[in-house]
């Protein structure tokens, strides 16, 4: 074999290796999800969703955890969405280039890399202790809001950047003020991208476990929260609690709860990708 053949052969070999690597991730994903379906699908019925937690695995349901997750999701959206978009609008449209805006930018990029458990420590000290909110739904939502704020800001800024400058110029030419231009033109035009970013960040919030454990969310709550100042549990914490128990029945419960959690996460991701595709087409 001459050198050229050897090189071609190596080229082919790497191609096969590349395909293998790409597939291995996807295959493992399928194997894992398949295994969870086998373990848990038989456990899911209406009672599993509407029953309160119990000491007995077969009687235990996810009602309180599911309600806790819905509360957390709702409050986190209400808190993080307006603040995140407002901060992004300021950075994109108002901030003058200089030391201060550079600092804001470094800061946001750094926050996006802070481990989620550190946000938990912040929430524990500030919301639970100093503001006396206790281990409540509100304290948990505030903590998660801080966690997803950088994601919302980055996504919002990117979609605002993608709006063609002609739209802005046309609005100014008609005598619109800066805020009128932003509110009536730029935000609606970038809404698809903003929505995508917000949904993706919320899907992350739904799956977060560690910061809420640190804040003091419980593994066992007898009732679903009825107002933001009550104690709560969420689906991922319920799953964590069930995984940690030795009896097989609880493993089955954990698998079943994971199916529900994955369903929610994948659905949110699906909706986000749908909006992204729809929105990208608009400007092409």
């Amino acid at each position, binding site marked *: 074999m001459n050198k050229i053949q050897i090189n071609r052969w190596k080229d082919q070999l790497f191609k096969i290796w590349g395909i293998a690597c790409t597939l291995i991730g996807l295959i493992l994903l399928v194997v894992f999800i398949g295994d969870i379906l086998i373990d848990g699908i038989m456990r899911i019925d209406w009672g599993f969703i509407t029953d309160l937690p119990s000491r007995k695995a077969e009687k235990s349901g996810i009602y309180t955890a599911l309600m806790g997750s819905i509360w957390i999701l709702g409050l986190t959206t209400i808190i993080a969405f307006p603040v995140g978009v407002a901060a992004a609008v300021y950075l994109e449209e108002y901030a003058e280039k200089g030391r201060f805006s550079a600092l804001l930018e470094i800061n946001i990029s750094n926050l996006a890399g802070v*481990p989620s458990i550190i946000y938990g420590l912040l929430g524990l000290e500030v919301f639970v202790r100093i503001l006396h909110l206790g281990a409540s739904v509100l304290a948990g939502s505030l903590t998660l809001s801080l966690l997803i704020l950088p994601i919302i800001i980055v996504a919002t800024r990117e979609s605002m950047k993608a709006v063609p400058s002609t739209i802005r110029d046309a609005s100014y030419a008609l005598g619109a003020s800066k805020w009128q231009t932003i509110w009536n033109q730029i935000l609606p035009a970038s809404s698809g991208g903003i929505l995508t970013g917000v949904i993706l960040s919320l899907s992350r919030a739904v799956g977060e476990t560690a910061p809420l454990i640190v804040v003091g969310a419980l593994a066992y709550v007898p009732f679903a929260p009825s107002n933001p100042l009550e104690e709560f549990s969420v689906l991922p914490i319920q799953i964590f609690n069930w995984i940690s128990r030795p009896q097989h029945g609880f493993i089955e419960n954990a698998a079943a709860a994971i199916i529900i959690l994955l369903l929610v996460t994948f659905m949110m991701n699906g909706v986000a990708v749908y909006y992204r595709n729809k929105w990208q087409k608009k400007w092409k």
Partner: protein
Amino acid sequence: MRKFREGIIEKSLFTSALITVAITIGIVSVLAFEAVRFFKEVSIFDFFTDTQWTPLFTDKHYGILPLLSGTFLTSAIAIAVALPIGLSISIYLSEYAPKSFRKTVKPMLELLAAIPTVVYGFFALIIVTPFLQGIYPSLSGFNSLSAGLVMGIMIIPFISSISEDALHAVPRELREASYGMGATKLQTAFKVVVPAASSGIIVSIILAISRAIGETMIVAVAAGQQPRLTLDPTVPIETITAYIVQVSLGDVQHGSIEYRTIFAAGITLFTFTFILNTISYRIRKKYQANYE
């Protein structure tokens, strides 16, 4: 009137932007405040040199080294899995794969990163550990090997996606010139495209490391709760993050030394990720300037 309204709007937008700064100040001061009180009771020297971490036992030792070694061990295993696989995927997708394949596979891989980490913990403990025990029977039920392997799978998309973006951004002409010289795709990929995209690839690796050391639920579920200064991947260990979870699950009195240990552990973790994030930010800024 209009000017007045616009002014108020700008102020409130500015306040929202300031919140992000307040978060950072909040994190640093909360961690520092509790850690300072912790170090009033425990000497910094002991903290970094004692080889035992037993704040929850009667014979108390406050040496962070066992937690650091646990964190290091699981992260190293994760990177050893994710780096070769993630890089190969990114090179394959950017240089070899047909466009349509790339378009469908990339979002599917990113789904790996969208799965909640507690679910990965389940995979590690319930699926991977029993499987590995079939091959290597003396493996403990809790170990850093399974946790690290599964964490590696989780961070594959961090490396593959960001690296692929960087490889994809390399100008077409560089490749054409290399092909024109008779180079194969493989030679072009490794001698031309990868070096040209090296800063982006390095950023992806640093982000993956930072992600691995901050990862909590996989290690809390599958790696155990036994702080141990070891590099043996088959025995139970404890990471910094898993320790914080362990304490948070228990009944720890606010203001006690046990309560402060989680902040001392937290500030150690924060310092490492902060350094890594700052380095990756610097490289990213420099690299953006290069292409513009």
